[in-house]
């Protein structure tokens, strides 16, 4: 990984100095041991602060959305970043010519306090970038150690009352900080329904009904476009099982429309829930 880190620093420096890109998106060390934080810089000198280690827990993939308006950006991309970029490209949030993707194979990231592989990384099926302009180092081909829908099948096997209790319990903890929404590469609406106060879709009270309405509406908005990076769950300060919700939607899409996994290439068909065909399954009709 230290070779990659060196290569990252020199490539970032070159790209900024040559004027090829306006900004570089990577990671730098935080104040604490094994802590990193996103580094976004336009200054070639600051590229020496870039790091790559097993604690680069942030998916940087949403940052191009905010930055490409000012010019081309270079981003270091593992599987999750590359899929986030495909998401932004497919949703026409950014343009391909405005992002330079430097691929890095990912061995999976670790929790800084426990040293354990992050849950999102254990579940990850695409550690290596699925799209890139150049690659640093070799792909890692890390296998997922968690079965994709194991958790969903477990929850679905519960009696109805317990299933309800599981989600009621989860949403009773939600503080509605919206970290899950703001970190999500699929949440790119110009104005979120949550912020449409005049329309009043969602009240401001913190209670289970409103919290659940927020969570379930969001999952129906993003479920079919979810790249399964698991960032929503990682950033949730209240440890809500948000990926269970997303995967439930994906699981149902799988069962209804066939094997489904999104944001793996730029020429895939439109997302399942935003497309309509006359022969679609409509069991409820």
């Amino acid at each position, binding site marked *: 990984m230290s070779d990659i880190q060196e290569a990252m620093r020199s490539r970032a420096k070159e790209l900024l100095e040559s004027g090829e890109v306006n900004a570089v998106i990577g990671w730098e060390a*935080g*104040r*604490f041991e094994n*802590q*990193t*934080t*996103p*580094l*976004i810089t336009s200054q070639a000198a600051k590229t020496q602060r870039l790091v790559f280690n097993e604690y680069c827990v*942030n998916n940087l993939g949403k*940052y191009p959305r*905010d*930055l490409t308006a000012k010019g081309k950006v270079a981003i270091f991309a593992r599987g999750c970043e590359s899929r986030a970029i495909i998401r932004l490209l497919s949703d026409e949030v950014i343009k391909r010519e405005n992002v330079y993707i430097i691929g890095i194979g990912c061995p999976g990231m670790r929790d800084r306090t426990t040293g354990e592989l992050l849950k999102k990384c254990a579940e990850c099926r695409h550690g290596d970038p699925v799209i890139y302009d150049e690659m640093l180092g070799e792909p890692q081909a890390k296998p997922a150690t968690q079965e994709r829908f194991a958790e969903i099948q477990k929850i679905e096997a519960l009696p109805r009352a317990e299933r309800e209790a599981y989600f009621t*319990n989860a949403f009773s*903890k939600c*503080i*509605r*900080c*919206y*970290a899950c*929404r*703001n*970190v999500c590469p699929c949440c790119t609406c110009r104005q979120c329904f949550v*912020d449409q*106060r005049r329309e009043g879709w969602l*009240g*401001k*009270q*913190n*209670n289970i009904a409103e919290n659940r309405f927020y969570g379930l509406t969001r999952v129906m908005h993003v479920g079919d476009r979810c790249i399964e990076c698991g*960032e929503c769950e*990682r*950033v949730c*300060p*209240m*440890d809500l099982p948000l990926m269970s919700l997303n995967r439930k939607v994906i699981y149902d899409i799988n069962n209804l429309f066939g094997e489904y996994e999104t944001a793996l290439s730029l020429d895939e068909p439109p997302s399942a829930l935003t497309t309509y065909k006359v022969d679609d399954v409509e069991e409820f009709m």
Partner: protein
Amino acid sequence: MIIKKDRMGALLGTLAQHKTVFVPALIDGVSKFAPYREGLDVRFDLHNTKLPPKDLLFPQTQKMYRYGETAEGGHYVEQFDESSERVLFGVRPCDMRSINLLDDVFLTKGFVDEFYEAQRKKLLTVCITCAAPAETCFCESMGLSPNEAPDADILLKSCEDCYKVTAQTQKGEAALADWRDFLEDTQAQVLPGKTSLRLNFEGVPQKLSRMYEDPIWDEISTKCLNCGTCTFVCPTCYCFDISQENKMKEGVRFRCWDSCMFSEYTAMAGWHNPRPTKKERVRNRFMHKLCFFEERYGKTLCVGCGRCVECCPVALDITRLIDDIGASDA
């Protein structure tokens, strides 16, 4: 006076017979102050609860009054008073200080918030000193001590297997009457706590007052997600928004925590927003904590509890900002 640590459960059981006693507890993986009951996972060993105790005095959602039409065609307005006799037991010095700061906001400068005041008067505070602060704790740099809490009604100084008990107010003195059966008149060695994270806060508020247009705000705000995590886990963030819910001929007016990180926070009629981007919002949050509040109340609004440092999804770290500003020559 001391109380043995193994007697705490019995003490809580006794106190909880008359009042609601809020203790640090682990519930579904989240630590917060929760009403004591038999079987609760009480955790006096945690440095800090994930959620601060401000919810006790300033609930995330607080009903203020309801109104509606009467059968006779008139109208009624009815104020809510959900305050009750409560004990905040096991609060840490940083959180104790946060209550002192909330008191300034809600009770001074010519306006008294009656909802806050009603609950504040009915709150007894029992503070435990920190023998072993966490790596993210920096209260000492913010002018506090992990070993003192001058505003607490009762102070428990951490010792090896007991706490040294001192009443610091008349309210605390009176409350100790209920503790009599659990106290012992012996001496114990207090374990002094020390924060390992030290910042140079000297002169930072003054420097900040000259840094409104500084490029630092562009730089640090770029990675911010503009979520509300830092403001909601902060023990001193006190912004709220008042709204109402109407159903047919009646309605309830309530207030909720708001966050200066949200774009909607400053949205005005006609969609004008005086803080249009992350930069203005991030600047406001740090300026308010470290500069504006100081100018208005002569105190810093950050108590060094480290919650935002711990919880920020992108590790946007207030301690690094303080150090960077301390080191700059603004």
